[in-house]
């Protein structure tokens, strides 16, 4: 597609999201089939999920607190009595011929999520529903294959207001939402496995316009990167249509991750008359004040509250704080340390630059790291006392500590001779040796090539096997190099 190189007018992008969140319950929303991901096809099914006549759905008690927790986190109004409706949708991945969802009376109404850039995204509502099965179109030439393992998996569908103005904001929102649902433990938020999926509604209007133009809904967006790509493509496509003086047709589009392009979703089933009506098989979901109060007390600290606390209490940068709270496990590990030990800022650096990457490579959780926080604190104390340099601590001492978890770091450092020297006589000897070896460079330095100081430091470090205290050495060296 040819896209215009120059836009004639100023446009504004308007985006709203529908995010489907699979809840991490053991069994499905209305029956006892397992929700396990990746099982053999059609093994996690029952008479209820296959819609055999005469079967009766009954709601899984675990989905209610999970929905309420999301409501508390997003500051939504929690509906004391929400109800289920049937959404008539004759499609093979829904064996009943309808999907049980909440149309008129959803469990959560309103709410907000604030993005990193400070803008607030308003939530229209969040409702409970059942996931559909999977239709597989590419495995057989003339057939669609049906796997009902996913049919009936509990979903929360979150619908935002059209408050997004860029793909970056959508990416930030999805990041924060995924982090949140993991913190409050209602979903694993795994987009690759479809535990969190997103439909993106995009329209473009002239900057300053108040009305919304026709929107296009992009389906099949299963990563944050794809969401951004789909938006970038779609915005350009719609602007091109408007620049040509035409109107964008309201459409459902498919996103192709390989080309980064959207294309109209052509389905033979195009009836969109859902004919919602109340499901008489399911009584209303009742949520009492007492129940909400009980859950309020169980709520963990939310990521944005933690971020604020960490920044304020320890003076850690915004970027580092973001890394520390990225995952609940890391945040807890960090917070456990801060409760008992000093040198928090140095510990944060160590965690970000050494411990997290190490665990990532080894594919193990931080909790399995054979490094006690007491030993790490002792190591950081040695660095603070100048007994050992930070680089020797992380490059030499840390690996030894992992191999000898029961020996104290002080003992290990002494044994390996990696304790730093600030002994003036010892430092002077190394400095003088180097000065004697490179008289030309000394002259050059004295004639103004001050950058050579790095060269001398390097030579001294080699001679001292890294033991020379860099600060002391540098001060002493500068003095000795003076003519």
């Amino acid at each position: 597609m040819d896209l215009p190189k120059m836009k004639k007018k100023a446009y504004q992008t308007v985006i709203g999201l529908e995010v489907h969140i699979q809840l991490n319950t053991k069994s499905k929303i209305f029956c006892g089939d397992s929700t396990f991901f990746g099982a053999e096809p059609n093994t996690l099914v029952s008479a209820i999920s296959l819609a055999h006549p005469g079967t009766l759905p009954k709601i899984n008690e675990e989905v209610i607190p999970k929905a309420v927790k999301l409501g508390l986190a997003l500051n939504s109004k929690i509906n004391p009595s929400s109800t289920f409706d049937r959404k008539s949708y004759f499609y093979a991945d829904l064996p009943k011929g309808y999907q049980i969802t909440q149309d008129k009376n959803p469990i959560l109404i309103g709410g907000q999520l604030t993005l990193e850039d400070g803008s607030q995204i308003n939530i229209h509502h969040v409702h409970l529903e059942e996931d559909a099965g999977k239709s597989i179109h590419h495995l057989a030439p003339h057939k669609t294959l049906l796997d009902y393992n996913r049919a009936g998996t509990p979903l929360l569908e979150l619908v935002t207001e059209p408050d997004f103005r860029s793909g970056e904001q959508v990416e930030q929102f999805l990041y924060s939402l995924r982090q949140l649902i993991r913190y409050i433990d209602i979903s694993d938020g795994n987009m690759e496995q479809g535990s969190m999926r997103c439909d993106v509604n995009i329209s473009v209007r002239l900057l300053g316009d108040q009305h919304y133009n026709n929107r296009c809904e992009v389906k099949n967006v299963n990563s944050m990167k794809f969401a951004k790509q789909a938006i970038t493509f779609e915005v350009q496509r719609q602007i091109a249509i408007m620049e040509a003086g035409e109107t964008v047709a309201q459409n459902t589009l498919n996103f192709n991750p390989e080309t980064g392009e959207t294309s109209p979703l052509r389905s033979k089933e195009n009836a969109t008359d859902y004919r919602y009506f109340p499901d008489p098989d399911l009584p209303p979901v009742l949520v009492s004040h007492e129940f909400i109060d009980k859950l309020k007390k169980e709520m963990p600290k939310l990521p944005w509250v933690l971020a604020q606390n960490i920044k304020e209490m320890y003076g850690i940068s915004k970027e580092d704080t973001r890394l520390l709270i990225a995952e609940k496990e890391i945040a807890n590990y960090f917070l456990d340390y801060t409760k008992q030990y000093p040198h928090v800022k140095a510990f944060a650096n160590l965690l970000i630059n050494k411990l997290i990457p190490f665990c990532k490579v080894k594919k193990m959780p931080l909790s399995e790291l054979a490094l006690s926080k007491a030993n790490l604190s002792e190591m950081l104390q040695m660095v603070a006392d100048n007994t050992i340099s930070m680089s020797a601590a992380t490059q030499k001492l840390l690996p030894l500590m992992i191999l000898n978890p029961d020996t104290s770091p002080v003992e290990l450092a002494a044994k390996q001779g990696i304790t730093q020297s600030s002994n003036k006589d010892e430092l002077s000897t190394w400095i003088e040796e180097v000065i004697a070896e490179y008289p030309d460079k000394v002259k050059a330095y004295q004639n103004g090539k001050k950058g050579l100081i790095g060269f001398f430091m390097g030579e001294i470090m080699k001679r001292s096997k890294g033991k020379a205290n860099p600060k002391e050495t540098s001060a002493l060296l500068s003095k000795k190099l003076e003519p």
Partner: protein
Amino acid sequence: MQINDSLFSKLENLAKLDFQPQEREKLKQDLENMLNMVKQLESVDTEGVAPLVYINEPVHSTRPDLIDGQLKKKDALSNAPNHNDDFITIPKVIDL
């Protein structure tokens, strides 16, 4: 209410059914009878009466989150008109 051909075709499409001309006439009559019966019900004064959705009093009826009642794959597939060893199969429903 008159069930005309275009309304009948719409319903046919929504229900994914296909009728012969002689069946259509009979069904149109049936549908009209049903609507007339509903019309009779509509004549009852329901001013101030909340719609009745649930026959029972609203009770908080839930089940514990336990895995229970799963069918064996062979049994699950046996009721479908067409299937292979793993999947229920239907005519292709999407143009790729």
